[in-house]
């Protein structure tokens, strides 16, 4: 369990990015942190592995105060993939990039091979195994960065904007990965602007605005409230907006659901 208690964070230049944030992330939780640019989302996740320590308040990871542990210690449990893959990638080939943390964490050669093959397939990267990560497109680099963390299956997986630059197929694959992590009772925290994706994947949502938590709850609950979304600078998914315009507001996130509801409204259900 990761617990944030009344966390404030003030950057060295005096900018206060978090204001009294309290949040409990239980084991097996799926939590999406959403909100406008500059709301404090990335600052928040940097507290989860001790990269940033709270200016006031406390963060504990499985009972350990992040002030009393090193980032290296915390990183065994908390794997973070940051928004910009260029900050993370350094190896000569995609395969080495993924192998590096596995080697560090003491995986055997045969386990390593297995994990590498698994994530290359999962992230649609098989044809780039021996390519330099830097030669890839933005979306592909992002997948390499994710693959290298997902490969060692951290207890807490933290992803900053995982759907950035990803097409439909890769988003579906990510969704499948989440299902696997759910079966294994792992925890996934993601920062995202992708309202539909968060809802589809069944995440809970914490809405952040100006460094404070504005609302939290299930995605269906939070993301179907247009006023709340407006406050957090998110746009309602098209289908939610559609039913609002039809004078029959509903938390609708899939085309199948929408079809059923329309057929009912049209008296053909």
């Amino acid at each position: 369990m990761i617990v944030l208690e009344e966390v404030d964070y003030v950057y060295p230049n005096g900018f206060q990015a978090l204001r009294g944030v309290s949040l409990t992330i239980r084991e097996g939780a799926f939590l999406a942190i959403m909100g406008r640019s500059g709301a404090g989302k990335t600052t928040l996740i940097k507290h989860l592995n001790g990269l940033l320590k709270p200016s006031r308040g406390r963060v504990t990871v499985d009972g350990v105060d992040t002030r009393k542990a090193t980032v290296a210690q915390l990183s065994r449990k908390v794997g973070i993939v940051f928004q910009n893959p260029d900050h993370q990638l350094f190896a000569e080939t995609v395969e080495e990039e993924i192998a590096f943390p596995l080697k560090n964490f003491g995986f055997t050669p045969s386990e390593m091979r297995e994990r590498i093959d698994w994530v290359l397939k999962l992230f649609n990267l098989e044809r780039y195994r021996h390519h330099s990560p830097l030669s890839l497109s933005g979306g592909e680099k992002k997948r390499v960065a994710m693959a290298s963390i997902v490969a060692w299956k951290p207890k807490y997986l933290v992803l900053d904007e995982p759907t950035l630059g990803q097409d439909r197929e890769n988003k579906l694959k990510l969704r499948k990965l989440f299902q696997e992590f759910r079966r294994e009772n792992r925890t996934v925290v993601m920062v995202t602007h992708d309202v539909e994706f968060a809802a589809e994947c069944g995440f809970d949502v914490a809405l952040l605005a100006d460094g404070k938590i504005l609302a939290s709850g299930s995605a269906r609950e939070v993301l179907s409230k247009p006023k709340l979304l407006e406050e957090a600078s998110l746009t309602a998914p098209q289908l939610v907006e559609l039913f609002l315009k039809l004078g029959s507001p509903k938390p609708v996130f899939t085309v199948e659901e929408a079809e059923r509801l329309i057929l009912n409204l049209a008296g053909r259900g």
Partner: protein
Amino acid sequence: MAVIKARNLTYKYPHAEAPAIRNVNLTVEEGEFILLSGPSGCGKTTLCRCFNGLIPHFYGGELEGEIWVAGLNVRETTPAELASHVGLIFQNPENQLFSLSVERDVAFGLENLGLPPEEIRRRVDWALNLVGISDLRDRAPWELSGGQQQKVAIACVLAMQPSILVFDEPTSFLDPKTAKEIFNVISELRRRLNLTILVVEHRLEALIPHATRLILMDRGEIVLDGEPRRVLLEAAEKLNFKVNIPSIVLLHRRLSGLGLLSGEPPLTVGEMAAQLGGVIKH
């Protein structure tokens, strides 16, 4: 007048086994607003790099076929010269920013053009104001959030006042509401200044109401190209799995299949609601 013309354009990066784009034929007329999409790795970014000469001048590799931009043969024109005609905004704003203040970053390209200080000041103010970041002018780009940084990068390019703007997933780092504002600004610019706009984007729904043309690529080739409604409809049949078709278009298609709707596929939620208005009993 055609501002971009590509003929049988094929390009292979150095050491690559296969071409990144293949046999691309494309004519872009002045004032068009083109939305370019397709699966990850389909060649969208590579094509954009041909427009301002990064390909072949910076990346090397093998370029076959012909490409003209603003009447200039890209092969024979330096990226520096192309930069005053084509502005490129990339996925990652950090690669574009390097000064100690936002203002300095926006002024940098203008100083290189040798413009008088007054004109530079006027254009910097204008560009900062357009993207809504006048209050950030004295801040250091590296202390800004990803979204704010991308706005700075957009201001830098806008300040150069090029006639063609190419955006490569410009709103990846922006929240959807801010993204919408940016697209509204760009669309307004096109209308007022007759700019030609080409935007690479995965999230079609935010941009499609602005676009005059939708181009979809797959495996290095242009597979669909034309009027947005028609292309969306065809894409829903052929490429649904690979492209994020807006959910109202998919819903429209299903309801049409059931004989409930007969109109054209909607580009906005408002259009969809209007079509459904006649079907739903109140």
